[in-house]
């Protein structure tokens, strides 16, 4: 199993938000985690990525059988966990290609692979950029600085393409995207999807799931998964609204 979350309780500022969450993800699967605002979707993403302000109260998270919560955020990343941010951060003064090459090489070092020099990396990056139809002029620009909402999200998926994570958590990747940007981002994710990796789509709306078909849909309410099913569950949810599941439990 790639990821196993067992009875996870976690929160922020002393407030418990996740109240006993269970989740199992295998390589080759796409999971959608849906839920209303405040259900704990974002907390789950942040806890998996290792955000320092979120506290784990109890429970376990195993990544390839190892204790993920023991690892620092950068160690998790080098092990193959990736989170696409809902609000990607701007890093002024650091070019996209500089940043991506550093990240790529850190992972390469960790796995005993060859580092790439700037020229080699540039070729690699050009190939990867096709995944999200990104113009190479973005390579020279500072990371996310002055990017539109859509460009930022595309840049997140480009990073995913470069780093080839085993587990990618896409945190509200569809938020703030117009229909064209949504299509490009979704197609990018579909191209990156394969039998060796897994993707967790964290989303409020069903819209994204028209473009990226999940194998499993989990509905989160009040810090717990209250309903689970196949992709048809998302449509049902769209139809009936979140009130339908709020009282329910698995």
């Amino acid at each position: 199993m790639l990821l196993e979350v067992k009875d996870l309780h976690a929160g922020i500022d002393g407030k418990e938000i996740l109240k006993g969450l269970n989740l199992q993800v295998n390589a080759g699967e796409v999971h959608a985690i849906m839920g209303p605002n405040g259900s704990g979707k974002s907390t789950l993403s942040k806890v998996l990525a290792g955000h320092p302000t979120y506290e784990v109260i109890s429970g376990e998270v195993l990544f390839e059988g190892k204790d993920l919560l023991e690892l620092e955020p950068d160690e998790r990343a080098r092990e193959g966990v990736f989170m696409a941010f809902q609000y990607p951060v701007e890093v002024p003064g650091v070019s996209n290609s500089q940043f991506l090459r550093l990240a790529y090489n850190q992972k390469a070092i960790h796995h005993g692979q060859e580092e790439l020099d700037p020229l080699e990396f540039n070729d690699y990056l050009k190939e990867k950029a096709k995944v999200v139809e990104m113009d190479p002029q973005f390579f020279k620009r500072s990371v996310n600085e002055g990017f539109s909402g859509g460009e930022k999200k595309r840049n997140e998926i480009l990073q995913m393409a470069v780093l080839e994570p085993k587990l990618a958590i896409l945190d509200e990747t569809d938020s703030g995207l117009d229909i064209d940007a949504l299509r490009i981002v979704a197609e990018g994710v579909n191209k990156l999807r394969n039998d060796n990796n897994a993707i967790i789509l964290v989303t409020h709306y069903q819209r994204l799931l028209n473009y990226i078909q999940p194998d499993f849909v989990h509905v989160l309410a009040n810090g717990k998964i209250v309903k689970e099913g196949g992709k048809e569950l998302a449509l049902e949810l769209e139809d009936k609204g979140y009130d339908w599941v709020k009282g329910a439990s698995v």
Partner: protein
Amino acid sequence: MSSTTAVTETVFTKQFAEFRASIGDDAMTKLRSEAFAYFEATGFPTPKDEDWKYTNVAAVAGGQWTVDSAGASGNTGEFNYKRNGFTALNLAFADIVVVRIPSETIVVEPIELSFTAEDGKAIFPHVIVVAESGSKATIVETYAASGRGFTNAAVQVLVEENANLTHYRVQKDSVEAFNYGVTEVEVRSGGHYDSTNINLGAALSRHDIDLKFVAEGAEAWVDGLYMLSGGQHHDTHSIIDHTVPNCLSHQTYKGVLNENSRGVFNGKVFVRENAHGTDAQQSNKNLLLSNEARVDTKPQLEIFNDDVKCSHGATVGQLEDEELFYLLTRGLPKTLAKNLLTYGFAEEVINKIEIESIKGELDSMVLNRLGAEI
């Protein structure tokens, strides 16, 4: 001199008499003597002086300096040697270089001026740059003192009608050195002045900038970086004076302070009564990398006209946690991530430099400072 002011003999007194004798009489002799008399009467500034509150130059005042000046003379026009003791001393011993860019001429290659104060020596470069109407050029002014060298420099810049001058000032003195510099700039109608001031070296350095718009439709960028560590101290005092309508000034100054270093930024922008249509933006951002580092920043905007677009602000802070987390989630170890963010912060200013060789050198100096490889 028949003055009643108490004059203290200094390490410069005898040297000035010898210096004056060695260069003989010329058009500047009288001015040099007046300036020296002014210096002897006022001495070096002290922290009692409001403008020097945070910068104590006692170490310079007490130094046993050997004057090192060829004493070339020139016409310093309206140079305000009475600004402080340093400027008076500069004019007394001034070694003048004149750079004149002829009207309607484009100089493609950068004009490089480099000044090196050797250990124990005091140098007094005085540069006069005249960018005549319609000309275009780039000036690179570099300071690279060795040991405890003392640089006391003055630069006068005149940007004439529709001239375009790019001015890089790079101070990379040894970390034991002392550096005082003043840059006086006058920009005329349609003139375009773009300066980037990089301060990396010296134990103690101070840069005074005094820019004045004297005719409409001119623009100026006055940007800078100070990156300090150990016990380094840097002070930038700048004045940008909008005396006429429809001029634009943009100022971005950034500070990176590590260990127990200390930075001072004091930026005054004046928008005078008739200066309608002024666009003046000023910002000073500081990154403190240690608990012992300190910065005193004071952006001041004084506006006497309503029809203007002005903003100013200063920040002092540490690396943003969210930026750091973002880099960590991409697999960069914490130290590398912090260095990359610091580098990026400094790069925003360095990236302005359009000469690859200088930019490359500054990049590696910044990385060296961080002990990082990027």
